[in-house]
């Protein structure tokens, strides 16, 4: 069998995946509220899609930079579960028909980020490093 790749590589790839997933997610928020890259009708802020858009905008940005990753990912995982059962599941049971592939994938990827954290390329890692170095600097 292929010899196991060094586990340190997988933590960097975790950060890469986190950044890409965060950017994809952020896109939906910016499309709703900032009209970029595709202009969408701005939703009512207190509606389902309005709150979802805010979570996408703020949550997506936080995931991209890797700040407060575990709690934010937990929120977004829940948001995607709600989105799937609210917007996709009523249409049909099968994800290929109801178009809910992305929602399911997002939900489980964010669930994994809750357990795996942000990886080394993140503000979380920077803050953890500076916090553990601080006592020695005093």
């Amino acid at each position: 069998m292929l010899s196991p790749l060094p586990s340190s590589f997988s933590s960097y790839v975790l950060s890469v995946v986190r950044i890409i997933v965060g950017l994809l997610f952020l896109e939906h928020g910016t499309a709703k509220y900032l009209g970029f890259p595709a202009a969408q009708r701005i939703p009512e802020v207190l509606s389902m899609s309005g709150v979802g858009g805010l979570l996408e905008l703020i949550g997506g940005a936080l995931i991209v930079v890797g700040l407060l990753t575990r709690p934010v990912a937990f929120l977004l995982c829940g948001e995607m579960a709600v989105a799937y059962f609210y917007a996709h599941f009523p249409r049909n049971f099968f994800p290929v028909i109801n178009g809910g592939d992305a929602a399911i994938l997002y939900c489980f990827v964010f669930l994994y980020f809750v357990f795996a954290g942000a990886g080394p390329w993140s503000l979380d890692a920077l803050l953890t490093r500076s916090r553990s170095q601080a006592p020695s600097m005093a």
Partner: protein
Amino acid sequence: MGDVMEATLDKYRPQVLSILRIMAGLLFLSAGIQKWFAFPVAMPAAANITLFSMIGAAGCIELIGGALVAVGLFTRYAAFIMSGEMAVAYWFYANRPARGFMPIQNGGTVEVLFCFIFLYLVFAGSGPWSLDALLRKKA
């Protein structure tokens, strides 16, 4: 308290990796089943699917690769090929100039998500709930 929670989360991380792997594999497999077996509903682009077409090859990778990743057998190899297939699908089918460069414009979000999740599986492996782990224990 935060450290205790993080320690608990880290402890169950491998199991959640297996959960992510199973879900991604099953979704991928269902795409392949739709192409080749028209279940649950036929895909218009795959109406006259043949083995040696782009969509036929994609369907095969999705069927076999998706099943392998779902049960966690030869995960890193299968995931590598599936990641490449999704990259090809994105850059050659979704990302067309007429549709726009960003995934939200060209509808290629799912391809990008699959591509990077499978890329991660290549490096992270299949986790404890997999045939790979079972075989490694026996060896």
